[in-house]
Protein backbone atom coordinates (compact mmCIF):
# COMPACT_ATOMS: atom_id res chain seq x y z
CA UNK A 1 0.00 0.00 0.00
CA UNK A 2 3.01 2.27 0.32
CA UNK A 3 2.97 5.18 -2.04
CA UNK A 4 -0.53 4.55 -3.34
CA UNK A 5 -2.21 7.95 -3.67
CA UNK A 6 -5.36 8.62 -1.70
CA UNK A 7 -4.48 6.28 1.18
CA UNK A 8 -4.02 7.58 4.68
CA UNK A 9 -0.30 7.03 4.59
CA UNK A 10 0.44 7.85 8.19
CA UNK A 11 -2.53 6.22 9.89
CA UNK A 12 -1.48 4.72 13.21
CA UNK A 13 -3.58 2.02 14.83
CA UNK A 14 -3.31 2.72 18.54
CA UNK A 15 -4.17 0.38 21.43
CA UNK A 16 -4.75 2.39 24.58
CA UNK A 17 -5.22 0.84 28.00
CA UNK A 18 -5.56 2.05 31.54
CA UNK A 19 -5.91 0.22 34.86
CA UNK A 20 -5.54 3.12 37.29
CA UNK A 21 -9.19 2.80 38.29
CA UNK A 22 -11.20 0.25 36.29
CA UNK A 23 -10.04 -1.85 33.33
CA UNK A 24 -10.29 0.33 30.23
CA UNK A 25 -9.30 -0.59 26.68
CA UNK A 26 -9.69 1.50 23.53
CA UNK A 27 -8.67 1.24 19.89
CA UNK A 28 -8.12 4.36 17.79
CA UNK A 29 -7.09 5.14 14.25
CA UNK A 30 -4.92 8.21 14.29
CA UNK A 31 -4.06 10.08 11.10
CA UNK A 32 -2.02 13.23 10.78
CA UNK A 33 -4.49 15.04 8.58
CA UNK A 34 -7.81 14.13 10.19
CA UNK A 35 -9.54 13.70 13.52
CA UNK A 36 -8.74 10.48 15.39
CA UNK A 37 -11.35 7.76 15.08
CA UNK A 38 -12.29 5.89 18.26
CA UNK A 39 -13.12 2.37 17.08
CA UNK A 40 -13.91 0.99 20.52
CA UNK A 41 -13.85 2.14 24.12
CA UNK A 42 -14.52 -0.56 26.70
CA UNK A 43 -14.82 0.42 30.33
CA UNK A 44 -15.12 -2.15 33.11
CA UNK A 45 -16.93 -1.57 36.37
CA UNK A 46 -14.82 -3.61 38.78
CA UNK A 47 -11.76 -2.13 40.48
CA UNK A 48 -10.45 -5.48 41.76
CA UNK A 49 -10.31 -7.70 38.67
CA UNK A 50 -7.60 -6.12 36.54
CA UNK A 51 -5.50 -9.27 36.24
CA UNK A 52 -8.53 -11.32 35.23
CA UNK A 53 -10.23 -8.86 32.89
CA UNK A 54 -7.61 -6.84 31.03
CA UNK A 55 -6.28 -9.33 28.50
CA UNK A 56 -9.72 -10.73 27.62
CA UNK A 57 -10.86 -7.12 27.05
CA UNK A 58 -7.91 -6.44 24.73
CA UNK A 59 -8.58 -9.70 22.89
CA UNK A 60 -12.25 -8.80 22.41
CA UNK A 61 -11.43 -5.30 21.17
CA UNK A 62 -8.87 -6.55 18.63
CA UNK A 63 -11.25 -9.23 17.39
CA UNK A 64 -14.11 -6.74 16.99
CA UNK A 65 -11.89 -4.37 15.00
CA UNK A 66 -10.36 -7.18 12.97
CA UNK A 67 -6.84 -6.11 13.97
CA UNK A 68 -4.12 -8.68 14.37
CA UNK A 69 -2.05 -6.16 16.28
CA UNK A 70 -1.83 -2.38 16.77
CA UNK A 71 1.02 -0.19 15.51
CA UNK A 72 1.62 1.34 18.94
CA UNK A 73 0.46 0.99 22.53
CA UNK A 74 -0.37 3.73 25.03
CA UNK A 75 -0.74 2.89 28.71
CA UNK A 76 -1.92 4.91 31.69
CA UNK A 77 0.90 5.24 34.21
CA UNK A 78 -1.39 5.99 37.13
CA UNK A 79 -1.45 7.19 39.78
CA UNK A 80 -3.76 4.48 41.02
CA UNK A 81 -3.88 1.52 43.41
CA UNK A 82 -0.54 -0.24 42.87
CA UNK A 83 -1.57 -3.79 42.13
CA UNK A 84 -4.10 -2.93 39.44
CA UNK A 85 -1.81 -0.30 37.98
CA UNK A 86 0.98 -2.83 37.55
CA UNK A 87 -1.34 -5.18 35.67
CA UNK A 88 -1.81 -2.51 32.99
CA UNK A 89 1.86 -1.61 32.80
CA UNK A 90 3.13 -5.21 32.77
CA UNK A 91 0.60 -6.17 30.11
CA UNK A 92 1.37 -3.17 27.90
CA UNK A 93 5.11 -3.74 28.10
CA UNK A 94 4.89 -7.45 27.32
CA UNK A 95 2.42 -6.87 24.47
CA UNK A 96 4.79 -4.30 22.98
CA UNK A 97 7.74 -6.67 23.35
CA UNK A 98 5.93 -9.60 21.78
CA UNK A 99 4.40 -7.60 18.93
CA UNK A 100 7.54 -5.57 18.36
CA UNK A 101 5.68 -2.27 18.57
CA UNK A 102 6.48 0.85 20.65
CA UNK A 103 4.79 1.48 24.01
CA UNK A 104 4.30 4.92 25.50
CA UNK A 105 3.12 6.05 28.92
CA UNK A 106 0.97 8.97 30.00
CA UNK A 107 -0.31 10.11 33.39
CA UNK A 108 -3.78 8.59 33.80
CA UNK A 109 -5.17 11.80 35.30
CA UNK A 110 -4.43 13.54 31.98
CA UNK A 111 -6.97 11.24 30.34
CA UNK A 112 -9.53 11.93 33.04
CA UNK A 113 -8.99 15.69 32.67
CA UNK A 114 -9.26 15.50 28.90
CA UNK A 115 -12.67 13.92 29.28
CA UNK A 116 -14.03 16.12 32.07
CA UNK A 117 -12.69 19.54 31.09
CA UNK A 118 -15.89 20.48 29.19
CA UNK A 119 -17.94 19.73 32.32
CA UNK A 120 -15.64 21.58 34.69
CA UNK A 121 -16.03 24.94 32.98
CA UNK A 122 -12.65 26.40 33.83
CA UNK A 123 -9.56 25.45 35.75
CA UNK A 124 -10.14 22.35 37.88
CA UNK A 125 -8.72 19.42 39.80
CA UNK A 126 -9.03 15.89 38.34
CA UNK A 127 -9.07 13.32 41.14
CA UNK A 128 -9.09 9.56 41.66
CA UNK A 129 -9.48 7.49 44.81
CA UNK A 130 -6.14 6.92 46.52
CA UNK A 131 -7.75 5.04 49.45
CA UNK A 132 -6.50 5.83 52.99
CA UNK A 133 -8.80 8.92 52.92
CA UNK A 134 -6.63 10.50 50.23
CA UNK A 135 -6.91 11.45 46.57
CA UNK A 136 -4.61 11.19 43.59
CA UNK A 137 -5.00 14.55 41.91
CA UNK A 138 -3.70 16.90 39.25
CA UNK A 139 -4.50 20.50 38.32
CA UNK A 140 -5.77 21.21 34.79
CA UNK A 141 -6.81 24.22 32.71
CA UNK A 142 -10.18 24.67 31.03
CA UNK A 143 -8.99 22.65 28.03
CA UNK A 144 -7.71 19.78 30.17
CA UNK A 145 -4.03 20.67 29.84
CA UNK A 146 -1.94 19.78 32.90
CA UNK A 147 -0.92 22.66 35.18
CA UNK A 148 0.41 20.66 38.14
CA UNK A 149 0.61 17.22 39.65
CA UNK A 150 0.09 14.39 39.83
CA UNK A 151 0.10 14.33 43.61
CA UNK A 152 -1.42 12.32 46.42
CA UNK A 153 -2.92 13.81 49.55
CA UNK A 154 -5.94 14.45 51.73
CA UNK A 155 -8.65 16.88 50.69
CA UNK A 156 -6.85 19.63 52.61
CA UNK A 157 -3.93 19.35 50.18
CA UNK A 158 -6.03 20.31 47.12
CA UNK A 159 -5.54 23.75 45.53
CA UNK A 160 -8.04 26.23 47.01
CA UNK A 161 -11.06 27.39 45.09
CA UNK A 162 -11.04 24.86 42.25
CA UNK A 163 -13.82 22.33 41.61
CA UNK A 164 -12.97 18.65 41.78
CA UNK A 165 -13.89 16.28 38.93
CA UNK A 166 -13.64 12.51 38.56
CA UNK A 167 -14.36 9.32 40.52
CA UNK A 168 -12.27 10.60 43.42
CA UNK A 169 -15.16 12.98 44.17
CA UNK A 170 -17.39 10.06 45.15
CA UNK A 171 -14.67 8.26 47.06
CA UNK A 172 -14.01 11.35 49.24
CA UNK A 173 -17.52 12.85 49.06
CA UNK A 174 -17.84 13.41 52.80
CA UNK A 175 -14.43 15.02 53.20
CA UNK A 176 -14.96 17.27 50.16
CA UNK A 177 -18.37 18.39 51.45
CA UNK A 178 -16.98 19.08 54.88
CA UNK A 179 -14.17 21.19 53.43
CA UNK A 180 -16.63 23.05 51.23
CA UNK A 181 -14.91 21.96 48.01
CA UNK A 182 -17.16 22.14 44.93
CA UNK A 183 -17.58 19.07 42.75
CA UNK A 184 -18.07 19.48 38.99
CA UNK A 185 -21.60 18.13 38.41
CA UNK A 186 -21.86 15.00 36.33
CA UNK A 187 -18.24 13.95 36.84
CA UNK A 188 -18.45 12.30 40.27
CA UNK A 189 -18.28 8.69 39.17
CA UNK A 190 -16.12 8.99 36.05
CA UNK A 191 -13.09 6.65 35.98
CA UNK A 192 -10.19 6.93 33.53
CA UNK A 193 -11.19 6.00 29.99
CA UNK A 194 -8.47 4.67 27.71
CA UNK A 195 -10.02 6.49 24.74
CA UNK A 196 -9.68 9.83 26.48
CA UNK A 197 -6.20 8.90 27.64
CA UNK A 198 -5.36 8.54 23.94
CA UNK A 199 -6.99 11.88 23.11
CA UNK A 200 -4.96 13.54 25.87
CA UNK A 201 -1.83 11.94 24.45
CA UNK A 202 -2.62 13.30 20.98
CA UNK A 203 -3.41 16.73 22.43
CA UNK A 204 -0.05 16.71 24.19
CA UNK A 205 1.74 16.12 20.88
CA UNK A 206 2.19 12.33 21.15
CA UNK A 207 5.00 12.28 23.74
CA UNK A 208 7.09 9.16 23.19
CA UNK A 209 8.35 8.32 26.64
CA UNK A 210 8.58 4.80 27.98
CA UNK A 211 5.98 4.01 30.66
CA UNK A 212 6.97 4.59 34.28
CA UNK A 213 4.64 3.62 37.11
CA UNK A 214 3.51 6.71 38.99
CA UNK A 215 3.20 5.28 42.48
CA UNK A 216 3.59 8.64 44.29
CA UNK A 217 3.90 6.74 47.56
CA UNK A 218 6.77 4.82 49.06
CA UNK A 219 6.40 1.08 49.50
CA UNK A 220 5.46 1.61 53.17
CA UNK A 221 8.17 -0.64 54.46
CA UNK A 222 9.78 0.34 57.73
CA UNK A 223 13.13 -1.15 58.68
CA UNK A 224 12.94 -2.87 62.09
CA UNK A 225 14.66 -0.95 64.90
CA UNK A 226 17.19 -3.76 65.28
CA UNK A 227 18.27 -3.26 61.66
CA UNK A 228 17.94 0.51 61.41
CA UNK A 229 21.50 1.20 62.43
CA UNK A 230 20.63 2.40 65.92
CA UNK A 231 18.43 5.23 64.68
CA UNK A 232 15.24 5.54 66.73
Amino acid at each position, binding site marked *: MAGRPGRKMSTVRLLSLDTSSVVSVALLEVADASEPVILSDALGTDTHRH*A*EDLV*PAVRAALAAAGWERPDAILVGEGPGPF*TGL*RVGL*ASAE*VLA*FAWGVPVYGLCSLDGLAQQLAPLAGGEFVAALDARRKELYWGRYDAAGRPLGGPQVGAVASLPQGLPVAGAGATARAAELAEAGVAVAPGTETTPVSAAHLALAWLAAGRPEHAPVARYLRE*SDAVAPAS*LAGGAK
Partner: protein
Amino acid sequence: MSANEPLVLGIESSCDETGVGVVRGTELLANAVASSMEEHVRFGGVIPEIASRAHLEALVPTLRQALDTAGVTMDEVDAIAVTTGPGLAGALMVGVAGAKALSLATGKPLYAVNHLVAHVGVGVLEGGELPASLGALLVSGGHTEILRIGSLTGDVELLGSTIDDAAGEAYDKVARLLGLSYPGGPVIDKLAAEGDPKAIRFPRGLTLGKFMGTAEEPGPHRYDFSFSGLKTAVARYVEDCRARGIEVPVADVAASFQEAVVDVITKKAVLACQEHGLTNLLLGGGVAANSRLRSLLSARCASAGIGLRIPRPGLCTDNGAMIAALGAQLVAAGVQPTGTEFGTDTGLPPSIVSLPAA
Protein backbone atom coordinates in the same frame (compact mmCIF):
# COMPACT_ATOMS: atom_id res chain seq x y z
CA MET B 1 6.34 -29.59 17.97
CA SER B 2 7.50 -32.92 19.18
CA ALA B 3 4.67 -34.29 21.30
CA ASN B 4 6.98 -35.45 24.05
CA GLU B 5 9.39 -32.54 23.92
CA PRO B 6 7.32 -29.38 23.84
CA LEU B 7 9.18 -26.06 23.95
CA VAL B 8 7.75 -24.16 26.91
CA LEU B 9 8.46 -20.74 28.39
CA GLY B 10 7.78 -20.38 32.13
CA ILE B 11 7.27 -17.20 34.17
CA GLU B 12 7.66 -17.03 37.96
CA SER B 13 6.95 -14.02 40.21
CA SER B 14 5.45 -15.40 43.42
CA CYS B 15 7.98 -13.87 45.84
CA ASP B 16 11.15 -11.83 45.31
CA GLU B 17 12.55 -13.56 42.22
CA THR B 18 11.47 -12.63 38.70
CA GLY B 19 12.21 -15.78 36.74
CA VAL B 20 11.79 -16.69 33.10
CA GLY B 21 12.90 -20.11 31.96
CA VAL B 22 12.80 -22.02 28.69
CA VAL B 23 12.62 -25.80 28.57
CA ARG B 24 12.38 -28.32 25.73
CA GLY B 25 10.84 -31.46 27.17
CA THR B 26 13.19 -32.21 30.05
CA GLU B 27 16.07 -30.19 28.67
CA LEU B 28 16.88 -26.82 30.26
CA LEU B 29 17.58 -24.13 27.66
CA ALA B 30 17.49 -20.96 29.77
CA ASN B 31 16.94 -19.94 33.37
CA ALA B 32 17.01 -16.14 33.68
CA VAL B 33 16.41 -14.81 37.18
CA ALA B 34 16.34 -11.24 38.51
CA SER B 35 16.17 -11.02 42.28
CA SER B 36 15.13 -8.08 44.45
CA MET B 37 16.70 -9.78 47.47
CA GLU B 38 19.22 -6.98 48.03
CA GLU B 39 16.38 -4.48 48.39
CA HIS B 40 14.87 -6.49 51.25
CA VAL B 41 18.05 -6.82 53.30
CA ARG B 42 17.53 -3.70 55.38
CA PHE B 43 14.05 -4.91 56.36
CA GLY B 44 15.16 -8.41 57.39
CA GLY B 45 12.49 -10.01 55.19
CA VAL B 46 10.66 -9.75 51.88
CA ILE B 47 8.53 -6.61 51.59
CA PRO B 48 5.71 -7.47 49.17
CA GLU B 49 5.34 -4.00 47.63
CA ILE B 50 9.09 -3.70 47.01
CA ALA B 51 9.10 -7.16 45.42
CA SER B 52 6.11 -6.29 43.22
CA ARG B 53 7.69 -3.07 41.97
CA ALA B 54 10.89 -4.95 41.17
CA HIS B 55 8.94 -7.59 39.22
CA LEU B 56 7.46 -4.93 36.96
CA GLU B 57 10.91 -3.46 36.28
CA ALA B 58 12.50 -6.83 35.63
CA LEU B 59 9.78 -8.62 33.69
CA VAL B 60 10.55 -7.70 30.07
CA PRO B 61 14.37 -7.63 30.49
CA THR B 62 14.24 -11.12 32.06
CA LEU B 63 11.94 -12.38 29.32
CA ARG B 64 14.27 -11.02 26.66
CA GLN B 65 17.29 -12.53 28.37
CA ALA B 66 15.70 -15.99 28.63
CA LEU B 67 14.76 -16.07 24.94
CA ASP B 68 18.23 -14.83 23.94
CA THR B 69 19.97 -17.42 26.11
CA ALA B 70 17.76 -20.23 24.82
CA GLY B 71 18.27 -19.01 21.26
CA VAL B 72 14.59 -19.39 20.46
CA THR B 73 11.85 -17.01 19.35
CA MET B 74 8.29 -16.88 20.65
CA ASP B 75 7.18 -18.26 17.27
CA GLU B 76 8.91 -21.54 18.08
CA VAL B 77 7.49 -21.82 21.60
CA ASP B 78 4.66 -24.36 21.97
CA ALA B 79 3.18 -23.08 25.23
CA ILE B 80 3.59 -20.60 28.08
CA ALA B 81 3.30 -21.45 31.79
CA VAL B 82 3.01 -19.04 34.70
CA THR B 83 2.86 -19.31 38.49
CA THR B 84 -0.67 -18.47 39.58
CA GLY B 85 -0.15 -19.35 43.26
CA PRO B 86 0.59 -19.82 46.05
CA GLY B 87 2.56 -16.64 46.73
CA LEU B 88 2.28 -12.91 47.35
CA ALA B 89 -0.79 -11.45 45.63
CA GLY B 90 0.76 -8.31 44.18
CA ALA B 91 3.86 -10.18 43.07
CA LEU B 92 1.92 -13.00 41.39
CA MET B 93 -0.22 -10.46 39.57
CA VAL B 94 2.76 -9.05 37.63
CA GLY B 95 3.83 -12.41 36.22
CA VAL B 96 0.25 -13.44 35.47
CA ALA B 97 -0.47 -10.16 33.65
CA GLY B 98 2.72 -10.52 31.63
CA ALA B 99 2.06 -14.16 30.77
CA LYS B 100 -1.48 -13.42 29.62
CA ALA B 101 -0.24 -10.56 27.46
CA LEU B 102 2.39 -12.84 25.96
CA SER B 103 -0.23 -15.49 25.26
CA LEU B 104 -2.52 -12.95 23.60
CA ALA B 105 0.22 -11.43 21.45
CA THR B 106 1.64 -14.76 20.29
CA GLY B 107 -1.46 -16.95 20.25
CA LYS B 108 0.38 -19.55 22.35
CA PRO B 109 -1.62 -21.56 24.90
CA LEU B 110 -1.18 -20.56 28.54
CA TYR B 111 -1.04 -22.84 31.59
CA ALA B 112 -1.60 -21.33 35.07
CA VAL B 113 0.45 -23.62 37.30
CA ASN B 114 1.08 -24.34 40.95
CA HIS B 115 4.35 -22.97 42.31
CA LEU B 116 4.80 -25.81 44.82
CA VAL B 117 4.30 -28.58 42.30
CA ALA B 118 6.75 -26.78 39.99
CA HIS B 119 9.41 -27.08 42.73
CA VAL B 120 8.98 -30.83 42.27
CA GLY B 121 8.60 -30.71 38.49
CA VAL B 122 11.98 -29.05 38.12
CA GLY B 123 13.45 -32.44 39.05
CA VAL B 124 12.87 -33.66 35.49
CA LEU B 125 15.55 -31.26 34.25
CA GLU B 126 18.18 -33.31 36.06
CA GLY B 127 17.91 -37.00 35.44
CA GLY B 128 14.73 -36.96 33.39
CA GLU B 129 11.45 -38.53 34.39
CA LEU B 130 10.74 -38.59 38.10
CA PRO B 131 10.57 -41.95 39.86
CA ALA B 132 7.17 -43.41 40.57
CA SER B 133 6.48 -43.62 44.30
CA LEU B 134 7.75 -40.14 45.05
CA GLY B 135 7.56 -37.86 48.05
CA ALA B 136 8.66 -34.25 48.04
CA LEU B 137 9.99 -32.06 50.83
CA LEU B 138 9.82 -28.36 50.03
CA VAL B 139 11.64 -25.98 52.35
CA SER B 140 11.97 -22.27 51.65
CA GLY B 141 11.36 -18.80 53.05
CA GLY B 142 7.67 -19.12 52.25
CA HIS B 143 7.00 -22.85 52.40
CA THR B 144 7.58 -26.01 54.40
CA GLU B 145 5.61 -28.90 52.96
CA ILE B 146 5.63 -32.66 52.50
CA LEU B 147 3.87 -33.84 49.34
CA ARG B 148 2.97 -37.21 47.86
CA ILE B 149 3.45 -37.16 44.11
CA GLY B 150 1.30 -39.84 42.44
CA SER B 151 1.58 -38.03 39.12
CA LEU B 152 3.23 -34.70 38.48
CA THR B 153 0.41 -33.68 36.17
CA GLY B 154 -2.62 -34.83 38.08
CA ASP B 155 -2.15 -36.53 41.44
CA VAL B 156 -0.45 -34.47 44.13
CA GLU B 157 -1.42 -34.70 47.79
CA LEU B 158 -0.39 -32.44 50.65
CA LEU B 159 0.72 -34.68 53.54
CA GLY B 160 1.97 -32.01 55.91
CA SER B 161 2.92 -28.36 56.13
CA THR B 162 3.90 -25.68 58.60
CA ILE B 163 1.09 -24.36 60.76
CA ASP B 164 2.86 -21.03 61.35
CA ASP B 165 6.24 -19.81 60.04
CA ALA B 166 8.05 -21.38 57.12
CA ALA B 167 11.46 -22.83 57.98
CA GLY B 168 13.32 -20.18 55.97
CA GLU B 169 11.32 -17.49 57.73
CA ALA B 170 12.42 -18.93 61.10
CA TYR B 171 16.04 -18.69 59.92
CA ASP B 172 15.50 -15.02 58.99
CA LYS B 173 13.90 -14.20 62.34
CA VAL B 174 16.56 -15.98 64.36
CA ALA B 175 19.28 -14.29 62.31
CA ARG B 176 17.74 -10.98 63.25
CA LEU B 177 17.64 -11.98 66.95
CA LEU B 178 21.32 -12.79 66.77
CA GLY B 179 22.17 -9.57 64.95
CA LEU B 180 23.09 -11.45 61.76
CA SER B 181 22.37 -10.42 58.19
CA TYR B 182 19.47 -11.31 55.89
CA PRO B 183 18.79 -13.84 54.49
CA GLY B 184 19.34 -15.90 57.61
CA GLY B 185 19.78 -19.32 56.05
CA PRO B 186 23.30 -19.11 54.61
CA VAL B 187 24.73 -17.09 57.52
CA ILE B 188 23.31 -19.39 60.21
CA ASP B 189 24.40 -22.46 58.27
CA LYS B 190 27.94 -21.09 58.12
CA LEU B 191 28.07 -20.11 61.81
CA ALA B 192 26.51 -23.41 62.87
CA ALA B 193 29.51 -25.24 61.48
CA GLU B 194 31.58 -23.65 64.26
CA GLY B 195 29.05 -24.31 67.04
CA ASP B 196 27.80 -27.28 69.08
CA PRO B 197 24.39 -28.48 67.86
CA LYS B 198 23.80 -30.11 71.27
CA ALA B 199 24.75 -27.05 73.34
CA ILE B 200 21.16 -25.93 73.82
CA ARG B 201 18.16 -28.24 73.60
CA PHE B 202 15.65 -26.15 71.63
CA PRO B 203 12.11 -27.53 71.20
CA ARG B 204 11.11 -29.70 68.23
CA GLY B 205 7.69 -28.38 67.18
CA LEU B 206 4.70 -30.75 66.95
CA THR B 207 6.63 -33.86 67.93
CA LEU B 208 4.69 -34.74 71.10
CA GLY B 209 2.53 -37.85 71.06
CA LYS B 210 -0.70 -35.87 71.13
CA PHE B 211 0.25 -34.24 67.81
CA MET B 212 1.90 -37.28 66.24
CA GLY B 213 -0.45 -40.12 67.18
CA THR B 214 0.52 -43.42 65.57
CA ALA B 215 0.74 -44.68 62.00
CA GLU B 216 -2.60 -46.42 62.46
CA GLU B 217 -4.23 -43.51 64.25
CA PRO B 218 -2.39 -40.37 63.17
CA GLY B 219 -2.60 -37.33 65.44
CA PRO B 220 -3.75 -33.96 64.12
CA HIS B 221 -0.24 -32.86 63.08
CA ARG B 222 1.68 -36.05 62.34
CA TYR B 223 3.48 -34.58 59.32
CA ASP B 224 3.04 -30.91 60.17
CA PHE B 225 5.64 -28.40 61.32
CA SER B 226 5.71 -25.45 63.69
CA PHE B 227 8.64 -23.08 64.04
CA SER B 228 7.18 -20.14 65.90
CA GLY B 229 7.73 -21.75 69.32
CA LEU B 230 11.32 -22.50 68.38
CA LYS B 231 11.88 -18.87 67.41
CA THR B 232 10.41 -17.77 70.76
CA ALA B 233 12.67 -20.22 72.61
CA VAL B 234 15.72 -18.75 70.86
CA ALA B 235 14.52 -15.23 71.72
CA ARG B 236 14.12 -16.19 75.40
CA TYR B 237 17.54 -17.77 75.48
CA VAL B 238 19.18 -14.69 73.97
CA GLU B 239 17.30 -12.35 76.33
CA ASP B 240 18.29 -14.48 79.28
CA CYS B 241 21.97 -14.32 78.33
CA ARG B 242 21.79 -10.55 77.99
CA ALA B 243 19.90 -10.17 81.28
CA ARG B 244 22.61 -12.13 83.05
CA GLY B 245 25.37 -10.19 81.33
CA ILE B 246 26.66 -13.27 79.53
CA GLU B 247 27.88 -13.04 75.97
CA VAL B 248 25.48 -14.88 73.67
CA PRO B 249 27.22 -18.00 72.32
CA VAL B 250 26.14 -17.16 68.79
CA ALA B 251 27.69 -20.17 67.06
CA ASP B 252 26.17 -22.61 69.58
CA VAL B 253 22.75 -20.94 69.31
CA ALA B 254 22.97 -21.09 65.50
CA ALA B 255 24.01 -24.76 65.53
CA SER B 256 21.40 -25.77 68.11
CA PHE B 257 18.63 -23.85 66.33
CA GLN B 258 19.59 -25.35 62.97
CA GLU B 259 19.67 -28.83 64.48
CA ALA B 260 16.16 -28.36 65.91
CA VAL B 261 14.81 -27.27 62.51
CA VAL B 262 16.59 -29.89 60.44
CA ASP B 263 15.98 -32.74 62.91
CA VAL B 264 12.22 -32.36 62.84
CA ILE B 265 11.98 -31.68 59.10
CA THR B 266 14.01 -34.71 58.08
CA LYS B 267 12.40 -37.02 60.64
CA LYS B 268 8.88 -36.18 59.55
CA ALA B 269 9.70 -36.31 55.83
CA VAL B 270 11.18 -39.79 56.16
CA LEU B 271 8.26 -40.90 58.35
CA ALA B 272 5.74 -39.65 55.79
CA CYS B 273 7.54 -41.51 53.01
CA GLN B 274 7.67 -44.73 55.01
CA GLU B 275 4.04 -44.59 56.02
CA HIS B 276 2.89 -43.88 52.47
CA GLY B 277 5.13 -46.48 50.86
CA LEU B 278 7.15 -43.82 49.03
CA THR B 279 10.62 -45.04 48.13
CA ASN B 280 11.94 -41.80 46.68
CA LEU B 281 12.13 -38.26 48.00
CA LEU B 282 12.84 -34.99 46.19
CA LEU B 283 14.11 -32.01 48.18
CA GLY B 284 13.28 -28.54 46.82
CA GLY B 285 13.05 -24.88 47.82
CA GLY B 286 15.73 -22.36 48.72
CA VAL B 287 16.61 -24.03 52.04
CA ALA B 288 17.65 -27.15 50.07
CA ALA B 289 21.02 -25.39 49.85
CA ASN B 290 21.46 -25.78 53.63
CA SER B 291 24.40 -28.08 54.31
CA ARG B 292 23.01 -29.66 57.49
CA LEU B 293 19.62 -30.30 55.91
CA ARG B 294 21.29 -32.04 52.97
CA SER B 295 23.58 -34.17 55.10
CA LEU B 296 21.03 -35.25 57.71
CA LEU B 297 18.36 -35.91 55.08
CA SER B 298 20.84 -37.95 53.02
CA ALA B 299 21.78 -40.01 56.08
CA ARG B 300 18.20 -40.63 57.19
CA CYS B 301 16.98 -41.43 53.68
CA ALA B 302 19.89 -43.87 53.24
CA SER B 303 19.06 -45.66 56.52
CA ALA B 304 15.40 -45.89 55.51
CA GLY B 305 16.20 -47.12 51.99
CA ILE B 306 14.70 -44.01 50.38
CA GLY B 307 16.29 -42.66 47.20
CA LEU B 308 17.00 -38.94 47.53
CA ARG B 309 17.04 -36.45 44.65
CA ILE B 310 18.18 -32.85 45.14
CA PRO B 311 18.24 -30.57 42.10
CA ARG B 312 21.18 -28.18 41.94
CA PRO B 313 20.78 -24.98 44.02
CA GLY B 314 19.92 -22.71 41.06
CA LEU B 315 16.93 -24.91 40.32
CA CYS B 316 15.85 -25.25 43.98
CA THR B 317 15.37 -21.52 44.58
CA ASP B 318 12.45 -19.85 42.83
CA ASN B 319 12.97 -19.69 39.05
CA GLY B 320 11.13 -19.73 35.76
CA ALA B 321 12.69 -22.97 34.51
CA MET B 322 10.71 -24.95 37.10
CA ILE B 323 7.50 -23.39 35.82
CA ALA B 324 8.49 -24.20 32.24
CA ALA B 325 9.46 -27.75 33.24
CA LEU B 326 6.06 -28.39 34.82
CA GLY B 327 4.37 -26.73 31.84
CA ALA B 328 6.19 -29.08 29.47
CA GLN B 329 5.00 -32.07 31.50
CA LEU B 330 1.41 -30.80 31.32
CA VAL B 331 1.62 -30.28 27.54
CA ALA B 332 3.14 -33.72 27.03
CA ALA B 333 0.41 -35.29 29.18
CA GLY B 334 -2.27 -33.67 27.05
CA VAL B 335 -3.64 -31.48 29.83
CA GLN B 336 -5.76 -28.62 28.48
CA PRO B 337 -4.41 -25.07 28.83
CA THR B 338 -6.00 -22.60 31.23
CA GLY B 339 -6.73 -19.75 28.84
CA THR B 340 -6.43 -16.11 29.86
CA GLU B 341 -9.41 -15.45 32.12
CA PHE B 342 -8.07 -16.83 35.39
CA GLY B 343 -6.93 -14.88 38.44
CA THR B 344 -4.16 -15.43 40.94
CA ASP B 345 -4.68 -17.65 44.00
CA THR B 346 -2.41 -16.84 46.95
CA GLY B 347 -3.45 -20.03 48.73
CA LEU B 348 -3.60 -22.46 45.81
CA PRO B 349 -3.42 -25.99 47.29
CA PRO B 350 -0.83 -28.39 45.79
CA SER B 351 -3.61 -30.76 44.75
CA ILE B 352 -4.39 -28.29 41.94
CA VAL B 353 -1.43 -28.67 39.56
CA SER B 354 -2.80 -26.31 36.91
CA LEU B 355 -6.02 -24.34 36.68
CA PRO B 356 -8.62 -25.81 34.34
CA ALA B 357 -9.92 -23.70 31.46
CA ALA B 358 -12.61 -21.23 32.53
